[in-house]
């Protein structure tokens, strides 16, 4: 009973880590530029497809596909930011931003269906990443353990990078006050570009790491968008990495627990909690006062 619960909670943590990786970039770009990007899940989808295609088609090992997936998504993100998104910055242009990014998402879903077909791609992982590991009285899934380990490394790097490097300090400054940051001689425009590069790269990596847990199909870009937006919204709209992490873990655990114990209610609980939190704390659970 307790072992069972712990196993499910463990799956929830793994899922939360995945959600965090996919949504972290969105948290930063939304907080930084006040830019509502509904294309973000496309970056994760691209990462997933790149990884699976390289594995299945060219026989690459799983680990070799990860950098390619990251880079591919990062480049797509930067390209879109440079050519389209930057024309749409500004808090009074949310409607334009929605239209543009929904349009791009529609196009991406159609293009993906055209290239890879409408059905989920089969995924075969190397044997050392599948199966169970026995730790004490728990049977833990090896892939999820790997995922959590990767997550811990990346999260540590991200938080250190965000809080200890001058690049992170510049980003935090720009989130707080863009004008003053620019007037200090910091090139905010370039900052935006790099934030997009890193954010979409992380989403691509998250997408590639998710191929074993989530279904790689063209609907991915829409299906997980809601979850990413919830992570960002609950985490706080001021680009807080730690807030997004907390929200992602909470959402991951709640979703897996909910699906296991009360499967008939579906995603109802998640949405209810999100809406209630938004009503009570419109700036997110972990928002700075």
């Amino acid at each position, binding site marked *: 009973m307790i072992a069972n619960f712990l196993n499910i909670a463990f799956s929830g943590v793994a899922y939360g880590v995945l959600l965090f990786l996919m949504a972290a970039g969105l948290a930063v770009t*939304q907080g930084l530029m*006040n830019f*509502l990007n509904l294309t973000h899940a496309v970056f994760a989808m691209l990462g997933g497809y790149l990884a699976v295609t390289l594995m299945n088609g060219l026989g690459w090992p799983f680990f070799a596909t990860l950098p390619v997936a990251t880079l591919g998504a990062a480049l797509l993100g930067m390209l879109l930011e440079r050519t*389209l998104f930057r*024309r*749409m910055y500004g*808090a009074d242009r*949310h*409607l*334009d931003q*929605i*239209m*543009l990014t*929904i*349009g*791009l*998402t*529609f*196009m*991406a*879903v*159609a*293009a993906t*269906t*055209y290239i890879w077909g*409408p059905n989920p791609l089969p995924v075969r992982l190397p044997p050392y990443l599948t199966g169970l590991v026995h730790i004490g009285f728990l049977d833990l899934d090896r892939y999820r353990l790997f995922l959590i380990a990767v997550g811990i490394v990346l999260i540590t790097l991200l938080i250190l990078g965000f809080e200890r490097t001058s690049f992170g300090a510049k980003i935090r400054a720009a989130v707080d006050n863009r004008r003053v940051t620019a007037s200090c001689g910091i090139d905010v425009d370039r900052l935006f570009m790099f934030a997009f590069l890193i954010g979409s790269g992380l989403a691509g990596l998250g997408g590639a790491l998710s191929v074993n847990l989530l279904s790689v199909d063209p609907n991915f870009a*829409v299906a997980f968008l*809601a979850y990413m*937006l*919830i992570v960002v*919204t609950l985490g706080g*709209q001021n680009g807080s990495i730690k807030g997004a992490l907390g929200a992602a873990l909470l959402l991951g655990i709640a979703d897996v627990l909910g699906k296991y114990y009360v499967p*008939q*209610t*579906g*995603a*109802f609980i998640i*949405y*209810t909690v*999100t*809406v209630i939190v*938004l*009503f009570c704390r*419109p*700036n997110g659970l972990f928002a700075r006062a």
Partner: protein
Amino acid sequence: MATTAAAQLPALSDEAAAKALFAERARWRWPEIAYWIAVVLCMFAFPTHLMLIAQVLITGLFAVSFDLLVGYAGIASLGQAAFFGVGAYTTGLIAHNGWSEPITGLLAGALAAGLLGFVFSILVSRLTGIALLMITFGVGLLIYEAAHSAHDITGGDDGLTVGNLSPLLGLFPFDFLGHTAVGYTFVVVFLAYLFARLIVNSPFGLELQGIRENVRRIPAIGVPVGYRYMVAFTVSAILAGLGGALLAQITGTVALGFLSFDRSSSVLIMVILGGIGTLYGPLIGAALYMVAQDRLADLNPVYWNFYIGLMLVIVVLCARGGIVGGIARIERAVRSRWTRR
């Protein structure tokens, strides 16, 4: 158009100027007259497509309801389908459980949606920007999931059969060809459109536009923003619910698709394509969208989505104002040439 009225200001007293302004705003533009004439002509020209025409009208009403919110009050929402679906399910459930009189059923659906819109507007009246967008998105998903989970009441994935309606006004039975359905839809949508016109061309409509233009400055001239938001949300929800209720009645079924995010996003597309903040632009946008979808979706829905996406990107980047804006620009260009000669 408003600028011409403002230009005459010095010559007129304040009251006369205001009257001229509101008369100019309420003037029927030729594209909207053309739209309604075209609808009537189509009803006679394509007697085998009456159900499509009725659905075009209903989608147009839904787009108008959304334009009221996004085009006039400037409230962007990602969950307008919630009101459409609640109206549809209310009307559907009433008929499903034995009350077959159509007009009271229709009004009940609109009322239920309006009530939801009212409650919702109280809760969101202090939110703006991304938080407001996210909450409309969340509430849309929430209501979808609620309808999905409540299988015993709504039928869940299987949908809900509305059941037979009794004759309209006791005179016109609903027939298979859709004669009654299309006439009924036409009258209801037209009346609802007149109502929406009345609202946006009133001083209240002007205040909404003021809020859209500058939400900080408008309280300074004595307009309570939160209260105006509440009225805009409620009216928009009533009209959306009316559309949903109509569709439920004439198609005889309510499905989860009535509440889906696809519906919320496609209405946004129609409004933008047609011309935001004009009321008749969204009507025309909805008609073109529906007809194009009817023609093209049979070929391959995937390509349809691609081109819809592309159209959106192009409209946002270089064709602000949509179809109506484009027509107005051409009209102005032609006029200026005429006057020069």
